């Protein structure tokens, strides 16, 4: 990791994105005090991870990439063990175990041995141990990796419910997961942060240009000639089906009055059917940023 610096506010849901080997797991291990950072500092809830690691560990719940489970224990035994190690007071232990069993929908299987559980259930048990101490910060490393589509939906639903009460830090390389869960995205490449933005802002960012799509009926050739006279505008593709034409235009970000612009383009030579800004999807942004110079930060 190098020059990694970011701040997360209470209640935020932040997604870490990065290719395999980008440094997501290393970063999470540093945040949870499992790995010591060679330089720099990590402050969680006002406590320094290096100087006051035990206090930090009381504030966090952590689900590593491989759910850390003991196969010979039952779910109930495992959660009791986790609660004891995480300083849940003895008087509240039973109540907290019941709470996480309910939150993670595990009540029916609480007496099952972990060895006999499916991957999806194991993941939920992993999340249950992470929230047994009702942590302020929940750190989830690739929480849906290796699950089938139904299990993925179940775990995402569970995370969506959890985020209502806590700050959540989630790493994944599944882009749709970030779009569905996170409010803010941090993209990591080769141990460096190359993007750190609210999800909406990132989706609206594609350099100094943006794309708009215009569908219209009318004289296509005449309109194409008009385009040549308008500055900061480039026709990137055109398609026609019978009388309906679609044009994709790349325009400067400074163009924000589409009605005026489209009026200028058509100039009475056609009738507008649709004008739409084409947002670059997260997948394209991710690929574009990963191909870019790692020292460039968005």
């Amino acid at each position: 990791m190098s020059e990694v610096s970011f701040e997360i506010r209470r209640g935020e849901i932040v997604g870490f994105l990065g290719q395999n080997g980008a440094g997501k797991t290393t970063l999470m291990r540093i945040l949870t005090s499992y790995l010591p950072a060679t330089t720099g500092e990590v402050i969680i809830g006002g406590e320094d991870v290096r100087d006051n690691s035990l206090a930090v560990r009381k504030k966090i719940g952590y689900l590593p990439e491989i759910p850390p489970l003991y196969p010979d224990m039952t779910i109930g035994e495992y959660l009791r063990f986790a609660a004891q190690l995480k300083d849940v007071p003895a008087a509240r232990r039973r109540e907290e175990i019941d709470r996480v069993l309910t939150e993670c929908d595990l009540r029916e299987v609480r007496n099952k041995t972990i060895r006999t559980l499916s991957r999806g259930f194991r993941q939920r048990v992993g999340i249950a141990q992470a929230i047994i101490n009702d942590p302020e910060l929940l750190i989830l490393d690739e929480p849906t990796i290796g699950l089938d589509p139904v299990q993925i939906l179940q775990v995402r639903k569970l995370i969506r419910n959890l985020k209502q009460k806590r700050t959540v830090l989630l790493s994944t390389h599944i882009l749709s997961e970030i779009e569905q869960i996170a409010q803010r995205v941090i993209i990591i490449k080769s141990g460096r942060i190359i993007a750190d933005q609210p999800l909406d802002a990132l989706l609206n960012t594609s350099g100094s240009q943006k794309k708009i799509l215009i569908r219209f009926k009318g004289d296509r050739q005449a309109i194409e000639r008009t385009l040549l006279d308008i500055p900061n505008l480039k026709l990137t593709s055109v398609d026609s089906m019978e009388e309906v034409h679609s044009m994709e235009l790349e325009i400067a970000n400074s163009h924000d009055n589409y009605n005026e612009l489209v009026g200028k383009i058509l100039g009475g030579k056609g009738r507008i059917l649709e004008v739409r800004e084409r947002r670059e999807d997260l997948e394209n942004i991710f690929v574009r940023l990963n191909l870019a110079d790692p020292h460039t930060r968005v």
Partner: protein
Amino acid sequence: MNKILTIARKELTAYFKSPVAYIVLVITISVFNVFFYLIIDDNREASLRDMFKVMEFMFIFIVPILTMGIFAEEKLTGTMEFLMTTPTTNTEIVLGKYLGSLTFFTVIFGTTLIYYPIIEFFGQPDLAATLSGYAGIWLEGALFIAVGILMSSLTRSQIVAAISSYGVLFSLSFSALFTKYLPSPAETLVIYAGTASHAQNFAVGLVTPGDLIYFLSGIFACILLARLSVENRIWQ
């Protein structure tokens, strides 16, 4: 202290849920009983001195099997990451695991206590020598467990942990046999470092502070090194 007991209880329960532990338990007790019969039948003497040698030899073989997974398995399955990100200190983790293994070892050791009433039934054994012999063997086992835990903390492989434990335990137990090939100062050092001379004193009823310090400091050193090994996660 609570967390040490929590981890110790978890380790102990894990032993009783594992078939390997039952196999070790049954084989060890069977071997002890056979040798007890053979020794008593052959010596016709109300003493457990020779039996202590059998126990010492047997513990060299079984302790690495009991301790090889203590840390290595946790590292391999990823549960070490869970343990070390809970508000539990490394010392509590190491001591908890040590206590769990030591308790299971004590259960196996405890089954041999029946031999005293048996020899007392047939003769007049020296109670003090027998008690000190038992104490010596237990202390030696406690040192073996500490060595096994240290070796397990150094690797992710249970096989490597077991083999390296065997290496250290054999060296501790039998190096004194080869001292005749060594120069005089080295000979003294190797004899002191080995367990044989210290355990022998206990077996004849001689409890000396030097022997006690030897075993306790050995246990302390291994636990301290295991703690350092657990703490140093970068090179692992």
